[in-house]
């Protein structure tokens, strides 16, 4: 057995160790700094200011409340049916980006996609 250099730490070892450590730490740092927008693929449904349901936007589905119906389709969410008088919530239509909301005042229901303070636009001028 003559294995020159096999038993001594060399640069390649340190490089591979450094690569593995860096690759491992990056997602951790990423999730700490961008925790807000990390949750963009869910929607929260509040009733009377209380969180009652958390809906995954990745899965098409229909959730029925006592007097309304919330529909998820292709990463969008809307209130499909409601028994309120003016149907403002139904007419709001689909929402899909962070910070967008649908509100139904008579039923005290709020549908919100959490995260990302400013949403889709960096700045708006009139």
């Amino acid at each position: 057995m003559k294995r020159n250099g096999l038993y001594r730490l060399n640069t390649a070892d340190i490089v591979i160790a450094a690569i593995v450590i860096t690759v491992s730490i990056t997602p951790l740092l990423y999730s700490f700094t961008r925790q807000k927008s990390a949750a963009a693929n869910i929607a929260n449904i509040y009733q009377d200011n209380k969180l009652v349901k958390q809906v995954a936007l990745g899965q098409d589905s229909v959730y029925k409340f006592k007097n309304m119906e919330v529909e998820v389709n292709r990463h969008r969410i809307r209130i499909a049916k409601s028994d309120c008088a003016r149907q403002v919530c139904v007419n709001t239509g689909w929402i899909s980006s962070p910070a967008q909301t649908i509100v139904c005042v008579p039923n005290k229901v709020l549908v919100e996609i959490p995260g990302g303070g400013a949403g889709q636009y960096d700045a708006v001028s009139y």
Partner: protein
Amino acid sequence: MPDEDKKLKKIALLVSCATILQVAESFFPQVVPGVKLGLANMIVLIALVDMGFRSAIEIAVMRTVISSLILGTFLSPSFILSFSSAITSTLAMGLVYKLLSGGGKPLFSLIGISIIGAMAHNLTQISIVYLLLIKNTGVFMLLPWLGISSVITGWVTGVVASQVCSRLERNRTKGGFKVPAAYSKKGPFVAPKFNIGRYISKDSHLHSLSPEIKILAIIVLAIIVVISEGFYEYFIVLAMLILVIAMTKIPVMRFFDGVKRLYLFIAFSFAIPMFFSYGGVIVMNFGILRITQDGLYHGSLFAFRLILLMIGAAVLIRTTSPQELASGIKSLLRPFKFTGISGDRVSRIVTSSLLAIPVLWENAHAFIKNYKIGKKKVKGLILALSSLIVMLYMKSEDDTLDLI
């Protein structure tokens, strides 16, 4: 003794060494599930340098089989995990060692090779956990921690393995390290008894059933459990298992001996989907952590799956002695002869390793008791570990040790 027999004996004894180190390691509590030093892997790495790739992979695979026979986890979830990751980590180390050492000078030293091996080991474990046991992407949250820990454990393993290899080389040329006389025979020490297997002898139909049928039945059961994803099927399997347990005449509590290490794993399989599922009605809310109905459902489903797999394996181990299991494995491997896997060879390795383990265990125990660690603690520990492995390795080449 012909050369081939000599080699087989050496492999069997190295398998025993690796098994002893793995079993010794399993006595220490696991801080994070899946994070272990990988002492057994060290033997594989040393064998890779000393004996070549074929022998290394043989040792890697056989030691998972034998330690599962001893710890009573054969065909259980933890066996599936250690079996598959032993193969991939040895493959990775072998490839790096063979391919990247062209021109005489290797690219990586043993430290780099063993980091790569540890990484392959961890990646395999987490993929198998995801594919077979906990189908929730939450398990990948562990990846960063596993990455960091594989650098640390790989580094330590590499340092000790380099030390062992260079000491072995020196011994062969100069003959410096002699196996002390006190260790080569039964010394005055009485090492704690090494229980092999968790077999409980009883007179039942299940005990007299042929081991081949039992092994196949457990494999089929495991496949059914992994494929089906509903409580309905699981309750049927559970009812069947309860019936089988009643047939064995073994007290029910004996089936739960030695599975304490798996409790953490079960808790983990319950907790991961519980905290990382979205959707469904919220049951409880703790700040960022929310428990939803979906999460609870999947968590209990995955925990149930693990428990079923565990009970199934426990029934096999409790009703079949290690020798019977070895002969069962031997005849079940017969159809695979064309791939070069010989059931005969496997069963010879199993039999001689099972014989060698108590002897080596006593030696290791006496060695640890007599060893004095110097002033420098960390260096002393590494030196102690490498001395222990050198001692065990030398044993495997000791012609006077007559076991086969």
